[in-house]
């Protein structure tokens, strides 16, 4: 068996007296899509923050292709893990193209002096970055909006732009935090197709989502997080059938659970500090 592209071993996170994560382990194999579900406050976003270096796990380690990740978001990104945010965090007064160019930051070489003098090498690098950024924008379906301010985009486009920006870092692993939150069924469907296409380019994906139907239709494997603990891990079918999962979701069958979750989604912000 080959080394998994991303591996979290026994990750725990304690805030003051609160144990947000208790020894969570997750494995992502190359070219797979893994889903992470769980009720509100289960620690999903905290787990993402630990994976991306925004938080330092209290114990445990995170490995990318067998190598431990550095404890700093910038270096994690450079190593090849990119993410989106639960509540979209674009750079609102930058243009669409500039947002993606910022994503290219860690793959560009120009230092302060080159930036100062705009020499030929600089120009080449800048042109290449722009080309790549436009490709990615086209890839996620945002054509001809280069000079629009990102804050002016409709909601769904902002989500897609955030994905393009993350892809611009040339990641091996892409972490998506609720990519379909607030989307209508058509948009959700389009997002699902987009994630499949991303996988086709060789990027492995971890998705947090409340929409259980979406997760089960998308993922190769699903992990369920409840109160900071990994409850179940396995194929969508196994997870769906697991009685503990149903129980964790208030003892209701999945369809009703999903309904509840959506109702709660409006106020589902307490997970972020």
């Amino acid at each position, binding site marked *: 068996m080959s080394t998994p592209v991303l591996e979290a071993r026994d990750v725990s996170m304690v805030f003051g007296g609160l144990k947000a994560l208790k020894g969570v382990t997750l494995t992502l194999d190359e070219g797979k899509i893994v889903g992470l579900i769980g009720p509100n406050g289960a620690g999903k976003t905290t787990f*993402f*923050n630990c994976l991306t270096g*925004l*938080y330092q796990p209290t114990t445990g380690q995170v490995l990318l292709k067998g190598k431990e990740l550095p404890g700093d978001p910038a270096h994690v990104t450079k190593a090849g893990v990119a993410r989106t*945010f*639960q509540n979209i965090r674009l750079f609102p007064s930058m243009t669409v193209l500039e947002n993606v160019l910022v994503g290219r930051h860690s793959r560009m070489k120009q230092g302060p002096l080159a930036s100062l003098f705009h020499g030929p090498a600089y120009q080449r690098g800048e042109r290449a970055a722009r080309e790549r950024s436009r490709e990615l924008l086209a890839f996620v379906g945002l054509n001809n909006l280069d000079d629009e301010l990102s804050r002016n985009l409709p909601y769904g486009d902002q989500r897609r732009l955030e994905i393009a920006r993350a892809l611009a870092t040339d990641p091996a692993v892409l972490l998506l935090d609720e990519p379909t939150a607030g989307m209508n069924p058509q948009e959700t469907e389009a997002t699902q197709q987009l994630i499949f296409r991303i996988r086709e380019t060789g990027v492995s994906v971890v998705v947090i989502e409340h929409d259980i139907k979406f997760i089960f239709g998308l993922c190769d494997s699903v992990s369920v997080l409840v109160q900071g603990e990994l409850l179940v891990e396995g194929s969508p079918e196994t997870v769906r059938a697991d009685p503990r999962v149903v129980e964790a979701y208030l003892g209701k069958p999945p369809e009703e659970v999903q309904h509840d979750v959506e109702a709660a989604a409006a106020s589902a912000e307490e997970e*972020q*500090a």
Partner: protein
Amino acid sequence: MSVLLQQLANGVVQGALIALIALGYTMVYGIIQLINFAHGEVFMVSSYGGLATFTLLPDDLKKSPAVALPLMFVGGIVIAVIVAVIMERFAYRPLRNAPRLAPLITALGVSVFLQEAVRVWYPNAKSNLPYPKVFPEGSLTLGTINVPWTGVLLVVLSVGLSVILQTYVNKSRMGRAMRATAQDPDTAKLMGVNPDRVIVLTFVFGAVLAGVAGIMFGGYLNNINIDMGFQNGIFAFTAAVLGGVGSIRGAVIGAFIIGLIKTLAGQYMPGGTQYDYVWIFVVLILVLVFRPQGLFGEPERVRA
């Protein structure tokens, strides 16, 4: 030893004055994240307000401190509150949704304007003005330590008022509304809190405390000038940051720390009084580097 004790006493009195002003900074910052640079001028204006009140009193009342002094407090505080409310209403409120630095520049503009307005329009305010002698004379002497009674009163008022303020903010309904608005104005609004009222009230509280400080400043130091707001305002702001902006306890303790550093560094550190300010700011920088949220501030959690 006696020098040390005397310097400690001096530092506490200086800190008490700064604390009264620092509370205004910290509360306003806590609620609308504005460094209200003009708050020091509110303190200055109140001092002149108190003096004006005294000047306008009939001669026989001037001679009885028991009447004149309370009236001066009332006059000074009323002027301070009026200035603060006008400032909030016409200078800051229209900028609530403006880019972050715009209200800061407004605050600096208000500060310059108030200072100059008093200088130009208050009679003879171009140089220091003596303060009326309606305060208790003499000093408290404990062994070798000597503190003027006005200094003692300043410390008592400062500590007493900050305890009252702390209790009010923690216990009362309006205090809860204040804390709610400070944490999340939008949610507080949904819960029926009127943020405008809360913010005005915050400015009013700050102005009342600055008003008390303004009158006591005149009484303790016997003279006032238009620069007093600026210098003490900078110290007060520093105190608020040192203690952790938004924290009432922090502002008061920060103020006392600053008062003590100033007197003790002037006494004992190399360079003496030449560099006493420098030490204040060095301590401030060190505190912020090792405890970025200030001594009593809430640590900032990364949002994601």
